[in-house]
């Protein structure tokens, strides 16, 4: 689960406190929290993550490692593996592991051919980590999911 997804989950557990209220309570720069939650690329730095870890009462490391597993990074891997027709393994938040060829993906979900007639539709916000992990893959892609929703 990317940092943004995890922050959204934590916020949901706080009964939906708004990003603006969090920014006001923590003193974060205006708009930063919303960007950390919603942008597909890694947003935020150690200082802002530490502030949010204090706010939510979770360990700093539990937030920090997620910054390196952004949605954008998953896009690169999905693209490369789809082009090479190599299988992808997704480690999901509930402990489930799904391995298979990428059928399609968009901004919200990934369809994996895990065997059988029907693909498994995995919600991207449930993806904790994946393998193989590719730092940089092919440069451009015309399919869905390559760009940020707001970029």
């Amino acid at each position: 689960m990317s940092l943004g997804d995890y922050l959204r989950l934590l916020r949901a557990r706080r009964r939906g406190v708004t990003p603006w209220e969090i920014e006001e309570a923590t003193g974060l720069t205006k708009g930063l929290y919303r960007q950390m939650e919603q942008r597909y690329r890694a947003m935020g730095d150690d200082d802002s993550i530490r502030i949010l870890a204090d706010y939510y009462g979770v360990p700093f490391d539990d937030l920090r490692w997620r910054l390196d597993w952004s949605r954008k990074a998953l896009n690169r891997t999905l693209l490369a593996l789809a082009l090479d027709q190599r299988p992808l393994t997704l480690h999901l938040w509930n402990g489930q592991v799904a391995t298979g060829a990428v059928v399609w993906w968009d901004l919200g979900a990934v369809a994996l051919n895990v065997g059988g007639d029907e693909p498994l539709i995995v919600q991207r916000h449930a993806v904790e980590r994946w393998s193989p992990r590719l730092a940089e893959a092919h440069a451009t892609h015309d399919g869905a999911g390559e760009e940020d929703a707001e970029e």
Partner: protein
Amino acid sequence: MAENLWALREQKKISVATLANRAGLPIGLIMEYESGQRGIDPRHLGRIARALYIEESNIKLQSDPRPGAAPLERQPAWEAPRGAPPPPPAPPASAPPPMRSRERPVRPRMEPRPSRPPRTPIPPRPSQLLHLENVLKRLKMTVAELEAEIGKPIAGLDRGAFSTLLKDLQVKMRETPLPTRHRAYLPESVDEFEGRYLTAAQAAGDLLHFTLFDGTPATGVIVGFSPYSITIRDAAGAEITLNKLALVSYRKLAGGQEPVR
């Protein structure tokens, strides 16, 4: 106290030409006013005063000649010297008038410049080719159709022409928005491909098995979905709305198949 025009002009440190230009009067007329050959026409007085930024009353209507200056002379009319042959008879009205001395002489025709060698067309950038490919995909057009539309082959276009073509196609693309184009507002919301999948599953009445974050399973057919939730009807006929954020995964179940945990 009124002063001579030439004195006022020199005080302002401007030339006769500048004064004439500012006042909108012929330069020769200004010179005649300054030399005293002619009194300033009252109709021109205001213009000259404004051009010099002074009051009309400051200007003498009849200037005294500048001390030591030769009287302004006009070019005398041409007269034939004594004993010279009489001038030629006037040409007929249809003939072109003879060239006057003030007209510019005809310049000798310049040698034509050697023509530049034709420029080598610059080929389009690879990014332009890729962009065209993507735009055609969006417009659901083939290269052949595009070539028929523009009336020339794509291969013959240089970089500039390619750029113009891409601009035109982008305008066309904006004017024909694709109904499937969709971008999720929030990351967990239903996006394009998942939307298609859910729509097809709903239309077919497929049975889906959902796994939630807390481990709760849910199985049913799709009644409907919104960007942030999916509503299903379970075997007992109860409708359950599942929040997208609470979902981990889901999958269609074949007839009689057990849910995958």
